[in-house]
């Protein structure tokens, strides 16, 4: 009899050869085949009962729609079933371990959700006068305060909408500072171990990106850095470094890197996507950082990965504080004041512009502050420690079977393996990841970072229990042993048990079908449409 990990039988039969009926509907009990909404919703159906319009029929001067657009009409229960059924095919942190490296798929505490739904926060409108929402301003200011305290920085721009937007904001502040000093350096240095968005951000601002190689241990090569700085003397705008880096390693030379960049007249942008590994342990401000974004949707547990939206406030050093974008909150004797325009700025404030129409992701601010306050400084520190502990627990549980590209040494909040342990097995990183789906796990990040061959980047959430990590490790060990025994079939065709088998990514990229086409659009004339 086959048992699950809790020792309970997974089938009623006595043999492993269980009869699996071919069903009439194609469904398998709760595993239902769900058609596209366009395939079963009928154009003639309308889910709502609308009164006859009492407005003129057409006033569009000949721009009236000439044919039906074919949107499906569904009754409310049908629409609800469609989306509920589809949601059951979704994998989320709420349903299982989600070891997506570099992405920090954190549990979203229910308390955060409760706070965000308080009517005083949930029902306010971004266009209502600031004087009617002092509580919201206070919350933003309070969150800003704790972000500055935890990073040791002078100022924070709250409005950026996510990580890459935050990078852009930080780099725009750096560019503004250079411009204000009548300098126009052209080069931004980006180490190989940085996030992929870093060079993209620099390029978007018109900077020339110069890459810095990693040493054999996966961290920045200081000699190469010095060499490059000397080569481009006087022309360096700054460096963009991710720390801990995408190899899951802490850049130990960060202080030296900061000093070298500052001596060259540049600024130090730190990608804070991995801040969740060091909150409460180290402050970027003490490490010489001039600007860093904080992914509230990673480090401070607000939802992301389809749930979002993200939120990426940027902390700034005293050298950049004056250039923070509009809008920002200013403390005055009569309370908090929202500064929305250049005219409202005072001496010393030189905002480089505005990143967003409004104040940013209010709902995420409430959740992030709720997370901070419910954890307290000791809780936040423990979350960092647990993140690092969990990643190292997995590293130690797998390092004898899988391969560590930079040797056996502690990692931070994520552990990076390469594919050399799969050499000569005929199994690739992609196959391995697909077989994990059959085991009920979302695969880890694969083929990133690019500096490592066949990379597998595993980041377990700090809230995973030891039992959950043990099961994950045991599953991974079973998969590795299976690959080494030559059981290639388990991998080459995986996933076998998912609602869909392996997708053809090549055809999807080369010949994408971007639009669902209705079988036969019905031509109608305006007079018929009006009926």
């Amino acid at each position, binding site marked *: 009899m086959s048992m699950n990990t809790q020792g309970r039988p997974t089938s009623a039969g006595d043999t492993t050869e269980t009869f699996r009926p071919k069903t009439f509907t194609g469904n398998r009990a709760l595993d239902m085949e769900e058609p596209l909404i366009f395939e079963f919703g009928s154009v003639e159906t309308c889910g709502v009962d609308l009164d006859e319009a009492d407005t003129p029929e057409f006033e569009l001067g000949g721009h009236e729609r000439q044919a039906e657009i074919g949107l499906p009409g569904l009754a409310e229960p049908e629409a609800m079933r469609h989306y509920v059924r589809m949601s059951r095919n979704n994998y989320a942190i709420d349903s299982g371990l989600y070891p997506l490296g570099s992405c920090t798929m954190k549990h979203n505490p229910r308390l955060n959700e409760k706070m965000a739904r308080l009517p005083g926060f949930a029902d306010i409108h971004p266009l209502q006068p600031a004087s009617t929402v002092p509580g919201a301003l206070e919350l933003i200011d309070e969150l800003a305060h704790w972000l500055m305290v935890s990073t040791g920085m002078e100022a924070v721009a709250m409005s950026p909408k996510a990580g890459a937007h935050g990078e852009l904001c930080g780099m725009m502040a750096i560019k503004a500072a250079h411009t204000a000093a009548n300098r126009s350096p052209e080069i931004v240095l980006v180490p190989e171990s940085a996030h992929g968005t870093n060079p993209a951000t620099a390029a978007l601002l018109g900077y020339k990106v110069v890459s810095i190689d990693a040493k054999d241990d996966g961290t920045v090569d200081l000699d190469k850095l010095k060499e490059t700085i000397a080569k481009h003397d006087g022309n360096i705008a700054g460096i963009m470094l991710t720390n801990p880096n995408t190899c899951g390693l802490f850049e130990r030379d960060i202080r030296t890197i900061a000093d070298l960049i500052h001596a060259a007249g540049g600024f130090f942008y730190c990608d804070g996507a991995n801040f969740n590994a060091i909150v409460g342990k180290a402050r970027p401000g003490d490490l010489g950082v001039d600007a860093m974004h904080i992914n509230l949707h990673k480090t401070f547990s607000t939802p992301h990965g389809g749930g979002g939206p993200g939120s990426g406030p940027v902390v700034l050093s005293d050298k950049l504080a004056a250039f923070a974008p509009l809008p920002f909150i200013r403390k005055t004797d009569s309370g908090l004041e929202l500064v929305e325009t250049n005219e409202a700025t005072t001496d010393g404030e030189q905002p480089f512009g505005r990143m967003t129409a409004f104040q940013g992701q209010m709902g995420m601010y409430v959740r992030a502050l709720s997370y901070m306050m419910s954890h307290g400084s000791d809780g936040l520190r423990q979350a960092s420690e647990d993140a690092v502990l969990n990643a190292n627990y997995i590293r130690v549980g797998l390092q004898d079977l899988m391969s560590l590209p930079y040797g056996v040494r502690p990692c931070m909040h994520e552990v990076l393996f390469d594919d050399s342990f799969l050499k000569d097995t005929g199994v690739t990183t992609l196959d391995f990841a697909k077989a994990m789906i059959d085991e009920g796990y979302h695969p880890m990040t694969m*083929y990133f970072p690019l500096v490592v*061959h066949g990379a597998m980047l595993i980041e377990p959430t700090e809230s995973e229990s030891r039992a959950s990590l043990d099961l994950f490790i045991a599953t991974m060990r079973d998969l590795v042993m299976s690959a080494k025994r030559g059981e290639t079939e388990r991998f080459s065709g995986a996933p076998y048990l998912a609602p869909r088998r392996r997708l053809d990514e090549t055809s999807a*990229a080369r010949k994408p079908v971007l639009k669902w086409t209705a079988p036969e659009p019905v031509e109608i004339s305006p007079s018929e449409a009006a009926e």
Partner: protein
Amino acid sequence: MTTYYSKDHEWIDVEGDIATVGITSYAQEQLGDVVYVELPETGKSLSQGDEAAVVESVKAASEVYAPIDGEVVEANEVLAEEPAKVNEDPEGAAWFLKMKVGNEGQLADLMDEAAYKAYVETL
């Protein structure tokens, strides 16, 4: 005609003052199925190490760098339409660009076939 190789896994065929540049078979194997190729405009002048083209596969996007200084005289437009050619015939029909050699001296820094083979062995 002499063929040179770079550490960025490019091959360079030099005939007279024209260099034809493509990516090696090893490179296409590492990339996997190529799904997109972006080519430089004819007449663009490149310095050694400049980004000359972009190649994107199901796994990654990467750059093809100019192995030497020179001016682009022709780009293989077929690749933009049929990126799969890069996997089929990387060291033949799927060349990326032809450039007018601007600095012959830089060729000396590149590898010959035997040296490139030895280099790949070390990876």
